[in-house]
């Protein structure tokens, strides 16, 4: 096997996959090295899933520029990638005069950044738009949208793969040797294999500082900042149809605890902002859970404890420590005297900015290797069918064509056996329970896998020949079962 690549991207998050897809347009041999067994295992899949408008970011920053650009085109991206996109708009609610001033400041900042679709609302207008929120005024951003960040990242990765990019899962970069004009990359995947890369793009998110250090560049430091979320049952989604944020308060290092409908019909609330020491510490804590519920119910009184069905946690890769208020612009640069492009501190609005960032990275690559298009790039991707979203006539047609569409595996979310098999047979070739969950929504409903995990297990064992002990949740270490009973 030829293990030499023109470009190796470290990290299979939304940004890494977007870069992979952009680069797949050109005559380059590209690979993505990801330490986990799937894409979107880190921050990309653990956020508010909001396509931001760009009013929150400092004028003239990369964040503002890429976010506004990303927002403007996000619907096209989603159409091309065949992933759901819902332009819900977003409300920022003022509860006192200071909040109103903050919102006016944001409005002006947004205009400066080139955001469209911003409106200041009076209390009455707010009441008409979202009667469940009690504020004295609000800013409405009509171009804010929600997506499913797993499906988006998976779509980018699959499309990149269709266009020739290789995905190397379970490849955690542990060492780099400079050899002539190239790098020899070492991984701790137990295979003792190395690959050679002419150029490396560091899109390692929370670990981007450490990856940079492997190349001898020690000037970056990531301050992990944890955000906990709670997931609410669909029953409340009839009520909440638009993301609701409080007017931001200074120094919290985030956007404040907000309530957001998801593209899958649930509602999420969060995130907290806790500076922690460990980039892998996804623990939730009782104090924060209580505070989330408290603050969310201040925002929307109808939110009750009994609606909670699940929780998740994400970690922001911040470049600025808590003492500095947490905000610093993205760092995206080709490091002098190296063949390394560093992307450091890609936190919110990284998801919205992912494709503009990827295009920017291409322009940096172009300064090293003049890019020529392959001419064969196909950007249009076809996603597996999402049965439950189809009209009845179409459902009937599909079942006639493939009876496995008729078999319901996950009842809460209406996921069929065919969709499960599509997810197991995904083009990236990764099979984990979390991967199936993220691709299909199986196990994410109100039973949280109480019924469908057994169904999934049965399919993996009986139809794909898995041994129970080979079924993993997220990684090799997260085995679901210890073996057969007998």
């Amino acid at each position, binding site marked *: 096997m030829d293990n030499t690549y023109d470009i190796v991207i470290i990290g299979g998050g939304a940004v890494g996959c977007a870069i992979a897809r952009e680069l797949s347009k050109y005559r380059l041999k590209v690979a993505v090295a990801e330490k986990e067994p799937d894409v979107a295992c880190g921050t990309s899949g653990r956020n508010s899933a909001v396509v931001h408008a760009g009013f929150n970011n400092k004028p003239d920053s990369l964040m503002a520029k890429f976010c506004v650009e990303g927002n403007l085109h996000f619907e096209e991206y989603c159409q091309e990638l065949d992933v759901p996109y819902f332009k819900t708009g977003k409300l920022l609610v003022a509860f006192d005069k200071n909040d109103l001033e903050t919102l006016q400041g944001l409005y002006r900042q947004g205009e400066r950044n080139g955001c469209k679709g911003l409106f200041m609302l009076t209390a009455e207008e707010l009441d008409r738009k979202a009667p469940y929120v009690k504020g004295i005024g609000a800013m409405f951003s009509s171009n804010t949208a929600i997506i499913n960040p797993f499906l988006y990242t998976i779509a980018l990765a699959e499309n990149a793969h269709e266009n020739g990019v290789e995905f190397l899962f379970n490849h955690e970069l542990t060492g780099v040797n400079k050899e002539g004009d190239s790098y020899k990359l070492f991984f701790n995947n137990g295979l003792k294999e190395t690959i050679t890369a002419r150029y490396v793009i560091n899109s390692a998110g929370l670990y981007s500082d450490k990856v940079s250090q492997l190349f001898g560049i020690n000037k970056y430091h990531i301050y992990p900042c944890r955000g906990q979320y*709670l*997931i609410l049952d669909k029953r409340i989604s009839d009520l909440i149809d638009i993301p609701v944020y409080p007017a931001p308060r200074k120094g919290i290092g985030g956007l404040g605890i907000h309530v957001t409908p998801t593209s899958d019909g649930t509602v999420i609330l969060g995130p907290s902002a806790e500076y922690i020491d460990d980039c*892998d510490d*996804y*623990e*939730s*804590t*009782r104090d924060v*859970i209580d505070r989330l519920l408290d603050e969310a119910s201040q925002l929307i009184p109808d939110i009750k*404890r009994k609606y*909670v*069905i*699940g*929780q*998740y*946690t994400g970690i922001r890769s911040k470049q600025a420590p808590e003492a500095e208020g947490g905000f610093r612009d993205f760092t995206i640069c080709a490091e002098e005297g190296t063949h390394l492009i560093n992307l450091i501190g890609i936190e919110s609005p990284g998801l919205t900015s992912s494709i503009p960032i990827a295009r920017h990275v291409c322009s940096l690559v172009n300064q090293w290797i003049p890019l020529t298009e392959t001419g064969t790039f196909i950007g249009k991707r076809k996603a597996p069918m999402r049965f439950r979203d189809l009209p*009845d006539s179409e*459902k*009937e047609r599909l*079942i*006639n064509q493939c*009876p*496995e569409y*008729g*078999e*319901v595996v996950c*009842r809460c979310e*209406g996921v069929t056996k065919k969709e499960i098999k599509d997810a197991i047979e995904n083009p990236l070739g990764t099979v984990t*329970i979390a991967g199936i969950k993220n691709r299909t929504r199986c196990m994410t409903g*109100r*039973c*949280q*896998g*109480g*019924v469908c*995990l*057994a169904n999934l*297990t*049965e399919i993996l*064992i009986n139809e794909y020949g898995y041994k*129970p002990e080979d079924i*993993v*949740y*997220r*990684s090799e*270490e*997260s*085995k*679901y*079962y*210890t*073996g*057969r*009973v*007998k």
Partner: protein
Amino acid sequence: MKKIIVVGGGAAGIAAAQGALDAGADSVWLIDRNKELGGILRQCIHDGFGLNKYKASMTGPEYAVRSISEIYDNPRLHISRSTNVIGVKKHNDEYQIQIQNSEGLKWVGANSIVFATGCREKTRGMLMIPGTRPAGIFTAGLAQRLVNIENVMPGKRVVILGSGDIGLIMARRLCLEGAEVAAVIEIMKDSGGLSRNIRQCLLDFDIPLYTGHTVSKIIGRERVQAVEICEVDDNLSVKKETAQIIDCDTLILSVGLIPENEILSAAGAELCDGTENVKTDSYLQTSLDGVFLCGNSRYVHDLVDRVSAEGYAAGQNAALFIKMQNLIEFQDPVTMNAIKGIPQKTDIFCVLCPNGCRIKVDVNEKGERNISGNGCPKGVNFVEQESKTPSRIVTTTVKGESGRLIPVKSSLPISLDKAASYVKECQNMILSKNDLKEDRRIRVAGFPDAIGCYD
């Protein structure tokens, strides 16, 4: 011809179909989402079902097979398996039910419907237990299905949160299959499980029960490595200073069941105030005319026999409804009189049936024993046996040639200290077609025969 559709083929649905047929319904259609009828009974391989209905102590699968056999050949009954009911709507004076299976998606008509959709389990998410989200967390019913039907072992060292009966039953089951149950944790001061189950599932196996405690944190990034448990105060809030760590690779949650009636409530059935339960009248009819509700989807029952009785009544009323005859009133039985909670050291709990009598043995000055508290003469024998060699009917599974697990129970009580080796013996057996005899008896080397349950 007027039609009745029964949604759900567990204990309640099977009984509802029977009730409707017995009341003279022309056409009853029983729809179930699983490949086999029987619902949750299929995975409840333990003994103790059927004392009211069949006057015999049966395993869940035995109870299911017997109930199904009573209606199976009825020409007025139509059964659809592997079929999901997606929705219900009223169309003129009949109901339309949308069903999905591998043959298609269609709307079918019914003049009356009985919902018998069971319940689902509360999850970790609903409890909001803090900590990590690793592999190795299961609800008890899921673990039960994995062990008893899917032949998959969830873990080796287990902590169970919740001492309700399902949690207790799973503690024993996992123990017998070779796992270590490190602890059962109960947030209340006393267990809500039956005393006889605490006796035969925990005390028999020396499994520690921590009452007034809860799991305050889950530890382990990829797979569960431990749980932190804490005492709780009178408001059930965690007392942080009491934290202790229990190493384990699995956490099983047995923290409550919720009636499952999304379809019914989506169809517009009224709910009881302040709950998610669907309102029924004394005829088991919901606010939708001709739509009846029974079993655990009405409320969570403690005895399957009662589920069957209620299902039967609901089916009967569905038949009377379409014939426009007077419906029969259904009286909910009083709460089960079986004794719940942790037994005193001196208590002897008879485990021969779900009544679980608390038997008192008094010895007078002359050394004569006076046995009281037993509901039937069997209790006396039980005490005798218990004082000599405590023995239990042991239930487990045996692997069939096809790989499928066949539930079995010992034909006679086995002394407690040999229960584990009996189960181990069964673990190593593979049952071939020739072994499947008329009398369902399976030879287990060195032990009483096992009685298999297969269709």
